[in-house]
């Protein structure tokens, strides 16, 4: 799907996240061990691996969503544009405005479609007046490829949409705060193949403006949408490379076994 040319350009992109020796503990259990990775701008990076390997946990470290879990402890260094996001001066609220997140299950607020998208800009004070807010809502819905379906019923409840539409609404909500990085935790696992195709197409478009990190259980999906792929196994990042290389010529035996379906 992506020629090697495109893959090469991706390598030249700026580093967005620089993580070194990240450890995550849930109480006593050591969930993430020594993960060091550089995530690039304007690139879709896929995290693959068997269930419970820590890929979602690591993803949630990137916008400090793990802070909401009392027993979770993160060590190591995660820099966003050279700034340590676990520094005591960082307010996770500001971080999350720059690092948006889309969850596994579509979770629109039980409010209107408009209010769903407008919520982020409102609480961050991104717009000065109603007209500007309208504009942000429209452009976010357009970017999320759902504008045409909902433009006539912006004030209908967001929870009344179909699953695929809800997930795209959640993506619109995430990009309305103009984040730099978009984290997606298995965004298509609750969707049917048609909705999945729509969301995947969307992810590919989002790459132009954002750095996208996606956790997925579907290796086909990782191959289709990502330029870089990281394979996680038992809390360790086994291999991180160009997607084409991971899927055609992995350097680690475990990666080889996983993508050929021998375990996991």
């Amino acid at each position, binding site marked *: 799907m992506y020629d090697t040319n495109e893959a090469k350009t991706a390598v030249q992109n700026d580093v967005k996240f620089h993580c070194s020796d990240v450890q995550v503990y849930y109480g006593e259990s050591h969930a993430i061990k020594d993960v060091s990775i550089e995530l690039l701008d304007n690139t879709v990076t896929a995290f693959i691996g068997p269930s419970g390997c820590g890929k979602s946990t690591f993803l949630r470290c990137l916008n400090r969503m793990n802070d*909401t879990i009392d027993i979770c402890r993160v060590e190591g260094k995660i820099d966003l544009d050279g700034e340590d996001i676990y520094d005591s001066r960082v307010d996770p609220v500001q971080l*999350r405005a720059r690092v948006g997140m889309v969850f596994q299950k579509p979770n629109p*607020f039980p409010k209107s479609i408009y209010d769903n998208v407008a919520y982020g800009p409102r*609480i961050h004070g991104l717009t000065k007046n109603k007209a500007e807010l309208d504009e942000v809502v429209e452009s976010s819905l357009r970017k999320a490829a759902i504008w045409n379906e909902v433009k006539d019923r912006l004030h209908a*409840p967001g929870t009344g949409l179909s699953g695929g539409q809800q997930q795209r609404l959640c993506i619109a909500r995430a990009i309305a*705060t103009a984040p730099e990085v978009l984290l997606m935790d298995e965004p298509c696992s609750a969707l049917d193949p048609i909705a999945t195709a729509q969301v995947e197409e969307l992810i590919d478009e989002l790459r132009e403006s954002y750095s996208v990190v996606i956790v997925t259980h579907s290796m086909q999906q990782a191959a289709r949408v990502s330029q870089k792929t990281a394979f996680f196994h038992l809390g360790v990042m086994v291999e991180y490379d160009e997607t084409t290389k991971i899927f055609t010529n992995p350097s680690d035996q475990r990666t080889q076994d996983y993508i050929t379906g021998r375990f996991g």
Partner: protein
Amino acid sequence: MTDAAMPLAGPAPAKSLHQPDARTRKRNAAERRFRLYGMAAVSAGLVALVVLLTSILSQGLPAFQQTYIEAEIYLDPAILDPNGTRDPEEISKVLTFSYKPMIEDSLTSVAERLQGQGASELTPAMLAGMISGAANAQLRDYVLANPEEIGQTVEFEFLTNARIDQYMKGKVTRESAALDSKVDVAQLNAADALVEGGAMETRFNWDFITAPDASENRPEAAGLGVALLGSLYMMLIVLFLALPIGVAASIYLEEFAKKNVWTDIIEVNISNLAAVPSIVFGILGLAIFINWMHLPNSAPIVGGLVLTLMTLPTIIIATRASLKAVPPSIRDAALGVGASKMQAVFHHVLPLAAPGILTGTIIGLAQALGETAPLLLIGMVAFVRDYPDAPPGGLFEPATGLPVQVYNFTQRADPAFVERASGAIIVLLVFLVVMNLIAIILRRRFERRW
């Protein structure tokens, strides 16, 4: 996977689907039996409810009716306002006792009129024995309210005493009157004559709801006014204290507090408090609010505070349960777009939990409204005839509460208080039904069905 050595269940021997086998019949019979048990339980509950309601309604509804003797009365200025100033100050100095001659004159004229119509046995003295001991005060209240009527002859309705009233309601018979020192058979005959002559009637009695309590000997004048006000004041205090404190405490415990030994201890204690007998809260209120803080006895403020303490655990438990029931994905969604914890809670979690919180609050309020034991201990069982002022001042003045008033009525000797007690229970139940209706309406309003 499947073990090849294990014999697979072959096709079952052909049995007709039209013929249920023994096992199926047994299962179906068990289900039918269970349904019967269920229906029996529901019917038993319904029967109990119907019996309870019929007994309360049949005993209590007559309390809303009262018998009056209608008579013309001349409001003699020579007695009421000897100086002719019509000054309410002056008029209020006239003793209640001084109204008696006017009433006697008025009753004499009624007796004479009816004697002319053939009721020969009716004497003025007999009539005087039929009106309530509260009649003097009743007339005085009327004159004080309408001083401009002095010097005129007005239509007035005298309360009859309880025995005559009960006779009109069919509860006093000629047989029982023969044994009763407070009424005799001749008076009952006279009552019949009065009704026939159009001078006596039984009609709806607002005074039962609005009037204050009356003495042991005048059940016909006793009302629920002070108790209603007292209960209303206490409910307001409970609502304004317990709802914000309870909801704030629950939000903090549920959303912000770290789970550690302390929050565990607090949680266990809240559950324990909900199970503490209410009389213990009464003793606590007596010790702290009255003996230590020196708040007045019998005051709605003390009752309200005690009931607040009692209601808080209920509200906290209900609120925490409804906060827990809000799906965590909503919190994730809010935090994910960069809402602070507090914004996530107040913008998204709380509105979704609101119906549950409201229900819990109203259940707590209803519980508090019906609570008697703690109020007995803080002196609200007192005999209070003066209405408390409007809040906030009135919160510190003596009052009673509805359930305490019921208890009070049942303690009195005169059988006419039986219907008063049941009537008070009906008012209490109406209060509860109204509160539950408000809860349902608010739930509907808050509940977003999407």
